C-alpha cells in the first residue's frame, strides 16, 4: 500500500491505444516493494497487456489476498476497481463478484503463500468450478511480508537465506491446476516479459479459469545460491515449451505460419494464440500429456514454462449454472417477470 501517486505527466511520445489511453493510463501508484522485486515486473507486464488489448480500466476488478503479491494491485491499473480480501480467501470473493456481475474482467492477483499455503482450498475450488477469471500467482517460494519463511511452493532441498534446507514437498500449482480442470494453464518468469505479456493477454481473452504461475524471485529473501526461485536459478532452468504470440480477434493472421512448428489456437472470442513450438512433441490440448510432461521435466530439475494447456472452448461456471447473459446485478423486474404471455410459453413446454 502506498499513498504516493505517480505524477500525472504524459510524455508526447506515448502512443495511445484504440481507446485513446496511453500505457501511462494503465499504471498505478508508486510501488513500495523492494527494488528489483519480480512482482513489479509482473505489474509492468499486466499494464502492457491491458494497454495493448485496449482494456477499459473501469471494466476490470483487481482482486487480491494478503502478501507482497497482493499489495501489487495498487501499483497497476489505478483506474480499475480493487478488492483486497483476507489471507487466502480471494478466490471465493472473486467468485461471488463474478456471479453478481459477469461483465467485469476479474483479475485475481495472489502469491504462493496466499494460494498454496493458507489459501490452497480456495485456490483449488475456484479452478475446479471454472470461475471466469485471470488468476496470477506471483510465486517466489517465501513469505516476503513476514521476512522470508518458506512457503508451500518452496522446493524440497532448497536453501533459505539463513542456510536452512527445506524438507517438505513442494506444491506445484500448475500440476494442480491441470488436475482440477483449469482451462488455460501457463507458467512464466517475471524476468521474461516477452513470454509473460502474451500469456497474460491470452488469459484475459480466455473464457473460463485461466491460471498463470509466474516465478517471481524475492530479491530480499530468496535470491541467493541454493534457492530454486532465484533469478539465476530460474534463468538456468527455464525450459519453455512454446513461444506465444497473441493475435487479437479482428486482426488478420498473416504471420509466418509454418505447420508442424507453429500452432494456432482460436479462443472463444475469436482471438488467436500463435504458438511457436519450441518442443515439437508438446501438445497444449492434451491435459494428461501436459501433466506427464511437467512431472517428467520437473524430475529432471527443469522449470517448464509457456502455455502448458488450453481448452479454448471450455465451459465456465456461468455455463455450468446456466446464468443469464445479463449480469445479475442489472436484471430488472421486467426481465424477471416477463408477463403472462411469456409464462404461457413456458407452461406450454411442460404440457
Amino acid at each position, binding site marked *: 500500500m502506498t499513498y504516493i501517486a505517480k505524477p500525472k505527466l504524459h510524455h508526447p511520445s506515448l502512443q495511445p491505444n484504440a481507446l485513446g489511453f496511453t500505457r501511462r493510463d494503465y499504471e498505478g501508484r508508486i510501488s513500495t516493494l523492494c527494488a528489483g522485486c519480480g512482482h513489479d515486473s509482473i505489474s509492468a507486464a499486466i499494464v502492457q497487456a491491458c494497454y495493448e488489448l485496449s482494456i477499459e480500466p473501469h471494466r476490470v476488478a483487481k482482486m487480491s489476498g494478503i502478501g507482497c503479491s497482493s499489495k501489487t494491485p495498487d501499483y497497476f491499473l489505478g483506474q480499475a476497481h480493487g478488492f483486497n480480501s483476507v489471507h487466502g480467501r480471494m478466490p471465493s470473493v472473486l467468485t461471488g463478484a463474478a456471479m453478481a456481475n459477469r461483465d467485469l474482467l476479474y483479475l485475481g492477483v495472489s502469491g504462493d503463500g496466499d494460494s498454496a*499455503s*493458507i489459501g490452497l482450498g480456495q485456490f483449488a475450488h475456484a479452478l475446479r468450478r471454472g470461475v471466469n477469471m485471470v488468476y496470477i500467482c506471483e510465486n517466489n517460494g517465501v513469505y516476503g511480508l513476514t*521476512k522470508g*519463511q518458506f512457503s508451500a511452493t518452496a522446493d524440497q532441498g532448497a536453501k533459505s537465506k539463513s542456510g536452512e534446507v527445506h524438507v517438505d514437498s513442494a506444491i506445484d500449482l500448475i500440476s494442480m491446476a491441470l488436475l482440477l480442470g483449469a482451462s488455460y494453464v501457463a507458467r512464466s518468469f517475471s524476468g521474461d516479459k516477452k513470454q509473460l505479456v502474451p500469456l497474460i493477454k491470452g488469459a484475459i481473452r480466455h473464457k473460463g479459469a485461466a491460471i498463470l504461475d509466474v516465478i517471481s524471485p524475492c530479491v530480499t529473501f530468496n535470491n541467493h545460491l541454493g534457492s530454486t526461485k532465484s533469478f539465476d536459478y530460474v534463468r538456468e532452468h527455464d525450459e519453455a515449451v512454446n513461444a506465444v504470440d497473441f493475435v487479437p480477434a479482428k486482426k488478420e493472421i498473416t504471420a509466418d505460419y509454418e505447420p508442424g512448428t507453429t500452432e494456432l489456437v482460436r479462443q472463444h472470442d475469436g482471438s488467436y494464440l500463435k504458438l511457436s513450438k519450441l518442443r515439437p512433441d508438446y501438445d497444449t490440448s492434451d491435459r494428461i500429456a501436459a501433466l506427464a510432461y511437467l512431472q517428467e521435466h520437473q524430475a529432471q530439475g527443469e522449470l517448464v514454462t509457456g502455455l502448458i494447456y488450453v481448452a479454448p472452448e471450455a465451459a465456465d461456471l456461468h455455463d455450468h449454472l446456466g446464468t443469464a447473459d445479463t449480469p445479475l446485478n442489472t436484471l430488472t423486474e421486467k426481465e424477471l417477470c416477463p408477463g403472462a404471455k411469456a409464462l404461457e410459453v413456458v407452461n406450454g413446454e411442460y404440457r
Partner: protein
Amino acid sequence: MSLELLSANHGAAMAATLAARANRKGRGFVSGVYPITPSTECMEFLCNQKIEKSHVVRVESEHSAMGVCIGGAAAGARTFTATSSNGLAYMVENCITAATMRFPVVIAVANRTLGPPWNIWADHGDALILRDAGIIQFFCADNQEVFDSVLCGFRLAEDKRVMMPVMVCMEGFILSHRTAQTDVPEQDKVDAFLPPTDVPHRLAQIPHTLGQIEVPHQTEMHRMQHHAAMLDVPAIYREIQDEFEKIFGRRPPDMLVPYKADDAETLIVSMGTIPITAERVVDDLRAQGKKVGSLRVRLFRPLPVEAIGRVFAGKKRIAVIDRNIGLGMGGVLWQDTRALADPGTVVQDYLAGMGGGDIRPEHIVKMVEDIEARTASGAPKLMEMV
C-alpha cells in the same frame, strides 16, 4: 536468574522454550506456528531453539497452527502458539475447540487491529473476539509481565481444576517489539515450577473418542463445568503466584493492579500498556491535589468481578479506557465493568487508541477533565488522538 534484553515477542518464546524443556520428563512439547505481523518474531525465536522432546511445526495457516496444538495436547504434550489479529480471527474455530475440549494450550497474542482495511498497529479487538470462548485472558503491561504470564499461563492452564487455554496478550509493536530487561530464571527453577503436563483426558491407554456429538443437557453440563472452572481461576491464580514467589523469589503481578485507588474519587480503569500511562497521570494530578487513582485489569477473563467491585466501591467517577469497540454497544471493558460500580457513580467510557493511536498522558488528563465535568454517565466517547 539472569537479566536478558528481550523483546516481549522473544520473551514469550523464551518462556515457552523453558516450559517446553521442563516437560522433557513428561510427554514433550508440540507447537504449530504460522507467521503474522507483529507476532512473527515469537514463532521465529521458538523455531530457533533446541528443545529436546519437541516439535515446532511450521504449518500453512493459523487454523492449522492451533490444530497442531490441539492434536499435541490430545496426545498429552505441552503446547504453545503465537499469533495476531486476523491470524487469531482465522484461528478462532480451533481456539474454541481447544477451549471446549479443555486443552491447556498457551497462546501469545500480539494484539493488532482486525482488518480489512489493513492496519498492523495495536488494538485489543482481536483478543476480545474470544472473550466468551472459555479461554483465560491476561493483558500485559510490560516485557517481564509477558514472560511471567506465559510461565504462569502453563501452570494455570495445566492445573487439573482449570484445564483450558490461556491467552497472554501484549500490544503489537508497543510491547511485542519493545526490547527491555527481562529476568529469565534458570531451567531447574522452571522445572520445579512447572510439573510435567498431565492432560487427564488425553488419548492414552484406554481407547476413547474426543469431540463426539452431544445432546442439549450434556452441552449444558459441559458449559457449566467450564464456567465453574473459570470462576475458580482467581483463587487458583493466587496459589500460583505464591508458588512462583517461593521458587523464583519475586511475585508475578496480581490479576488486578490498583494504583492509589483507595481514596480516589476518580478512578481510571484500563488494560494492557495504557494503565502505565494512567499511573503517571495519577501522580501528576495528585500533585495538583486531585484525588485520582487507576485500576489495571490484567486478568480480563474470567473477570474478577468481586474484586473489581471492591475497588469501585465509593468512587464518584470511573473513567474506563477502551482500546477497542464492541460495535453497536461501546467499549468492551466498559460494557463488562460498568454494572460493578455503585449506583450513582458516573461511569464514562473513553474509546482511545483504536487502530494503534498513541495514548499519551495529555489524552488521559483530558478524560479526567471530561469526567469531572459530568454529573451523569454518558454514551461512549471517542477521544481523538491529535
